[in-house]
């Protein structure tokens, strides 16, 4: 399904794009450190019942205005700035975030719990457990990612490889520049340890929250789902079998069903 791409500019002056799908109650999606993918089956599935706004995070698109976002507070406020720019009126959107996007959505919700309806954290980053150290994606080579991010590494490899030929200088440069901007931006809240003390602020959240996780998540072990649930007053955990960290791409049908059942 193709999305309508809407250009926005926030009050801070950060430019970006929002991919809009479907109609219904507004649902705002925050992507992970990999960005928005050419196919987003979970968003397609959700768009049957909701108006889905997928925000392309600064640094992940073409507009080079990400420099003004430096720390976690900047990131969370930018999320709210984007929602303001969408002009949703009085409607309080559901926030759904995956991985880094989940970390941002949780932080936004802790800052302004009355600004949203329900919260869905999908394999969300933002906490640290010494017993489950998060593998360092910033030191990984491209070929090492699939195994960590997917329950089934063959499935992951076919998803992640865009068929580009990196022995070609220009293709390599494009990849490096894209990566430098995307993961360079993500690193501001995820490097070297993906913990900006969100755990201290989650007590503020009373919204109904679904913590949705891949049962085979090798990046953020399911113990992190339990930790989120223990820190958020009104949260329930749901594990999806045969899915790793890239749950929205590995088991989109099951993820769609779980989120719809929760949001109602």
């Amino acid at each position, binding site marked *: 399904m193709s999305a309508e791409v809407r250009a926005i500019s926030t009050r801070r002056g950060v430019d970006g794009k929002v991919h809009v799908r479907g109609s219904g109650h507004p649902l705002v999606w925050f992507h992970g450190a990999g960005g928005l993918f050419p196919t987003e089956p979970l968003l397609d599935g959700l768009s049957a019942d909701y108006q889905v706004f997928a925000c392309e995070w600064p640094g992940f698109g073409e507009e080079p205005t990400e420099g003004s976002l*430096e720390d976690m507070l900047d990131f969370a406020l930018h999320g709210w700035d984007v929602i303001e720019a969408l002009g949703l009126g009085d409607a309080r959107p559901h926030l759904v975030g995956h991985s880094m996007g989940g970390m941002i959505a949780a932080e936004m919700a802790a800052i302004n719990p009355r600004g949203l309806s329900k919260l869905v954290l999908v394999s969300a980053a933002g906490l640290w457990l010494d017993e489950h150290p998060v593998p*360092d994606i*910033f*030191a*990984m*080579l491209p070929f*090492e990612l699939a195994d960590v991010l997917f329950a089934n590494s063959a499935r992951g490899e076919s998803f992640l490889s865009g068929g580009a030929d990196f022995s070609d*200088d220009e293709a*390599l*440069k494009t990849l*490096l*520049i894209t*990566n*430098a*901007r*995307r*993961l*360079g*931006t*993500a*690193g*501001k809240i995820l*490097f*070297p*340890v993906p913990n900006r003390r969100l755990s201290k602020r989650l007590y503020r959240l009373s919204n109904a929250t679904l913590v949705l996780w891949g049962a085979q998540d090798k990046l953020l072990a399911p113990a992190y789902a339990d930790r989120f649930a223990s820190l958020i007053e009104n949260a329930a955990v749901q594990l999806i079998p045969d899915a790793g960290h890239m749950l929205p791409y590995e088991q989109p049908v099951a993820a769609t069903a779980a989120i719809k059942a929760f949001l109602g």
Partner: protein
Amino acid sequence: MSVKFVWFNLMPWPYLGDDFRKNNRSVWVDIPSQLFDPVKANKVYNEYMDQLEFADDIGFDGIGVNEHHQNGYGIMPSPNIIAAGLARRTSKSALCVIGNSIALYNPPIRVAEEFAMLDCISGGRLVAGFPVGTPMDTNFCYGQIPALTREKYAEAHELIMRAWHEDEIFAFDGKFNQLRYVNCWPKPIQKPNPPIYIPGGGSIETWDFCLDNDYNYSYLSFNGYKGGQALMDGYWERVAQRGDRDESPGRAAFAQIFCVADSDAEAERLYSEHLLYFFNRCLHVYPGFSDPPGYRTLDTIKAGKLNQLRKEALEIFRNVTWKDLVEGGFVIAGSPDTVRERTEHMVKSLRVGTVFCLLHMGNMPDWKTRYSTQLFAEKVLPHVQDVWGDEYPDSDTRWWPRPLEDRVRPDGPEALSHARRRVDPTLANGFGPAAGGGAA
């Protein structure tokens, strides 16, 4: 100006096993700590410091140290500690600390203070290096956020220079450092500051930073003079293109591995195994640590400096032979004649005023290091120091220190007995008992 030759010791750990490469993914960042033996290190550190003192004594212009962390080829996380030891046991050569990764010090005023101490103790012999720091050290070992590293470096540089230059106490409201009372105590002898050397890997921003401030640009790679030619050409093209700076060779420094023996064949017999130890074990760095997204600027990536990034760049050392190293210019090796001729060529073709001489490499034993160093000092140095003639003055303190003539010289046997001298108790005579018989 004479060419300055600096005897540099990376301080590699000399006990990496034959199968190091097979059993470990990296010599840096996550090298197993069990491979470090503190008892052996007692001898290793002292031997390396002795060699640096030897280099001072035998006539090198400078002795050099640098900073690496969690690194099997550089066991010197604090070069200032080594330099402090050297300041007390040498008195002639410049102390080249190349350098302190200033984005890592919290607050960076620490560097201003420690470098000032070194300059005072040594009588004005400090050359101060300010590297941005490798991603391995800066980001992975010391946890700095890649995309913010350069900005943090720039702020640290500004703070240190202001702390050295300004006479009044000032408040500093930085993004990374907020200090209400910046008051660098002590300050360096050299005014306005010691010569500043900036180790860089070829980013355009670094070249301009050096030129804007009249700092020396130091290309410290292990690629040798042939591999470094294109990059140094780029630097000098930038100098010419800007046109706002002189072209003194003092603007550039280069690191080069040297092995000197009686003959070319003897050089191979003596040094080959130690060079191969270095290239095949010490440079085994996991590629994932070498370029975290956000560390390099987009302009640098766009400028196409991709050669250091590809996996192949590390793999060229996989089956490296002595012949590859010599023919590729990675090492200048051979008889004094051979080394002399190639060194002169290197200095001219790269247009450098300072050469960092790597004469200890890998697991080279002490006697070979000294043999090579001695031959270099006696049979090479005197013939290559005057390559640049007198077109540029030696008194240019932008590139090299001019220490106090009348400085404390704490090396040598007299210095030791001076430090240990007992006082004559009669000196206290006449000060008498406390007045009032201890009425306090």
